[in-house]
């Protein structure tokens, strides 16, 4: 499908997400809602992969580029970051390792549980 149509479809979904987010009684980022909508619309077959493929792939592959201007603004907060450097670093490192371990072990335990149940059913 032509890029113009892809832009039309993806941006319409974003617009719809923005509308739904405004109606929700709690704060929910419109962008994440749009992500969910894209997934659900594809799942239900209302839109097909080819309707947004090139555009969505381009966005996913260049996500890093899109954040460059936001990152540059870090220079306005050098003082605040320097002031809190130790907590930021400690929290950044410790919690990342913790999330890695907990996620990995949870998945492993869940799979073992499922396997055991499967054996009971079929064995």
């Amino acid at each position, binding site marked *: 499908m032509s890029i113009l149509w892809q832009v039309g479809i993806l941006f319409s979904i974003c617009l719809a997400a923005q509308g739904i987010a405004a109606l929700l009684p709690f704060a929910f980022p419109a962008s994440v809602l749009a992500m969910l909508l894209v997934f659900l619309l594809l799942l239900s077959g209302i839109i097909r992969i080819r309707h947004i493929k090139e555009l*969505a792939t381009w966005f996913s592959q260049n996500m890093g580029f899109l954040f460059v201007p936001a990152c540059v603004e870090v220079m306005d907060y050098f003082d605040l970051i320097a002031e809190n450097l130790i907590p930021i670093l400690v929290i950044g490192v410790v919690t990342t390792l913790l999330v890695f371990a907990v996620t990995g072990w949870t998945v492993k335990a869940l799979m073992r549980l499922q396997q055991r149940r499967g054996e009971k059913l079929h064995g």
Partner: protein
Amino acid sequence: MAEVLSNPVFGIAMSVATYAAGVWVNKKLKTPLANPMLIATALLIAFFLLTGIPLEYFNEGGDIINFLIFPATASIGLSIYANYEVLKKNLVPVLGGCLAGAATAVFSVLGLCRLFGLDETMTASLLPKSVTTAIAVPICEQNGGISQITIVAVMIAGTLGAVLAPSLSRWLHLSDNEVATGLAIGCSSHAAGTSTAVKMGETIGAMSGLAIGICGFFTVLFAILFPYFL
């Protein structure tokens, strides 16, 4: 001169040029530490500090790029759908793992913020630090944080995971389980980690990619409760 520099084209051209330089360096060095986004950011900050050109000029173009993060985040929905078959096959481990990962991230950050005695703004900025920037920034903003602090913390998590993922997987005895390894990488270090995960194996890459969106979604759900924590 100001007329030229205050045109949005200036900021966009500068961003593209420095990012292209970053991609080139990344290909030469082949290490996750040489992240194109980090290189572009460093080059641009150095440029603006040296020349004294006000950042407002750059932001005329920067705002246009910033706006595109919205449809780009929506695009993550396609990659979840593209991995739908693996998701369906491993539904319980994926959902359970991502939920556990998101909960661990939120509560361990909260606990450490209290321990360090950080204020509300700082805590709100750090809470979403385990998810991809596109999801972390709106969570930070809706709770009154500073998105640039969030970005720094997100980058630390991403870089750490991208560099250490293969070793962590071994040390934590996960290397015999590709689903567990992939989800652990995606939940702890989002897109940056996924670039390493893709190189470790197809299943690991797919799982890590799935975790970006799903763990992000769970974190958004927890974020609804953030106002009560802060």
